[in-house]
């Protein structure tokens, strides 16, 4: 075999492999714009321009008067442009509202009497609308045995027996079992006095109303709150096994 055929073979081999890889990438790329619709809604995704949000104009300037006397936010029929013109260039109600959760699974480990297990996540929120925001929380159902939903670790009642889904209480006694959470951050509700004050989650299965856990009436940027979950079992009363539930956080902008 002559020496100059080797580089040629390698080149062809490389081209063949590259072609395979490119074909693979193209085959797994997202579908092009897709559209789902009925008479009441249209869901469209793909590449398109965002129609709302900030608009740039060289004629924007600070206004002398703040709107017309007695005017409302509606203006003409249709979606209002009141907050993006007419003297309110710097009111960002119509701007983005962003919400992050650092992880989507809380691991409480193996629960045993005489100890509390905990895990946490962080929530980050950004809103330029001066109505601020509020975050609600709830659980789909109590923390229940994976193999038998009828067996549950009850929501905590804290050390004093008085905490609820709307009022936090001190929970440090490891002999007091239950499931609860704490919120720590500048906008946490005021009943979370310390990182040892816990609430129950509002139980959606029990028709409990979801509760605000953090809020602000001001503009915020990357505001962080840390949510700590805690669970424990009372001695001798709980079936062994893995306990599961799902919890939800709902971030709502102010108006």
């Amino acid at each position, binding site marked *: 075999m002559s020496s100059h055929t080797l580089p040629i073979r390698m080149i062809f081999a490389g081209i063949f492999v590259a072609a395979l890889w490119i074909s693979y990438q193209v085959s797994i790329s997202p579908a092009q714009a897709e559209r789902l619709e009925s008479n*009441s809604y249209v869901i469209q995704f793909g590449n398109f321009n965002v129609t709302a949000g900030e608009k740039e104009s060289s004629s924007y300037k600070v206004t002398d008067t703040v709107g017309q006397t007695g005017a409302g936010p509606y203006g003409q029929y249709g979606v209002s442009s009141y907050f993006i013109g007419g003297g309110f260039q710097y009111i960002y109600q119509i701007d983005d509202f962003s919400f992050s959760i650092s992880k*989507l699974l809380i691991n409480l480990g193996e629960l045993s009497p005489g100890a509390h297990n905990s895990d946490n996540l962080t929530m980050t929120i950004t809103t330029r609308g001066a109505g601020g925001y*509020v975050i609600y929380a709830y659980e789909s159902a109590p923390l229940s045995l994976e193999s038998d939903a009828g067996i549950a670790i009850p929501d905590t009642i804290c050390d004093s027996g008085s905490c609820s889904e709307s009022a936090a209480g001190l929970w440090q006694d490891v002999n007091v079992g239950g499931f609860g959470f704490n919120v720590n951050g500048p906008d946490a509700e005021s009943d979370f006095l310390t990182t040892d004050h816990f609430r129950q989650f509002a139980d959606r299965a029990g028709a409990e109303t979801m509760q605000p856990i953090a*809020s602000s009436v001001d503009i915020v940027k990357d505001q962080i709150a840390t949510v700590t979950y805690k669970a424990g079992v009372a001695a001798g009363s709980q079936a062994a096994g893995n306990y599961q539930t799902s919890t939800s956080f709902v971030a709502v902008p102010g*108006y």
Partner: protein
Amino acid sequence: MKSRTITNVCLFVIFATLSLLMANKVGAQSNTGMTITVTPATAYLKILPGNRETHTITIVSQSSQVLEITPKVVDFRPDGRTGQPILSDTTNFPYLVDGTSHFPPIILQPKERAQLTLAFNPPAGSPDKEYPMTVIFTARPASAVDAMNSASEISGAVASNIIVLVSKEQEPPPQVSIKDFGTFRLVDSFGLISLKPIAENESFAAIVASGSASIKNWQGKPLAEFPLYPDSILGLSTRELRSFIIENTPENESEPLLVPKPFQFDKPFLFGIYRIGLVLNTEEAEITLVALPFSIIVAILVGAGSYGAYTLVTKRLRS
């Protein structure tokens, strides 16, 4: 022989490298989070009965995993003080086309965006009424995350408010009043004058607060003036008024920001009568405050009372 070995080694390296790159694309689902952005945060939509209008909300996922997003429309009511909605579980809005408030899930790939367009069609003759609603987009991982121990799955939801006014009135007549100034009539000289005025909108349609608050001394000399922040006061509701200052944001100095601030007048020593005036859209009201050194007066009274009690007790003990 040697050249064939080199060729085989090169091919192996190429395949191994590409295999590693492909493995990252189809790796096991890890416990990463989610980031969702929705636009607009709040919108106002006015509809003439008999007409059809639409409203579009854009949702963007900045997450690194595939998310399943489920939209749902619910009603909200104002809390009477701030602009923070109190959500209901359902909606009573009767004019969603097809009457549905639940929508099929949207699968969002990482960094992908989608739009949801709602259609409203109130029939002719529909009563004038405002409907505050919130569209909640609930996101969860498209594939289940395995939990080895006791655990809680998390779902996050982000919302966009839509306030729909159904009205045949081109401009509904405003009816706003000042319900309360939100301040004590007696103020300590070493304190500050703080207002938390509550405005009431007696009309069925939202208005925007416009006007100012002023503080004058007993001679009528203006001491301070505070513009009202243009907060929305929804129909048949109340809201606490705020003032504002204009701040230049470091990121963009050509685009200043109206930052809400409370009404506070702070002076080293307040004394005498002060008149607080409030102009809200077409309404005007005024109250009078009296500032005296109450803290000193109370301290003197407590001291005198303690001395008097002490004297009385010691006299009785001697007798």
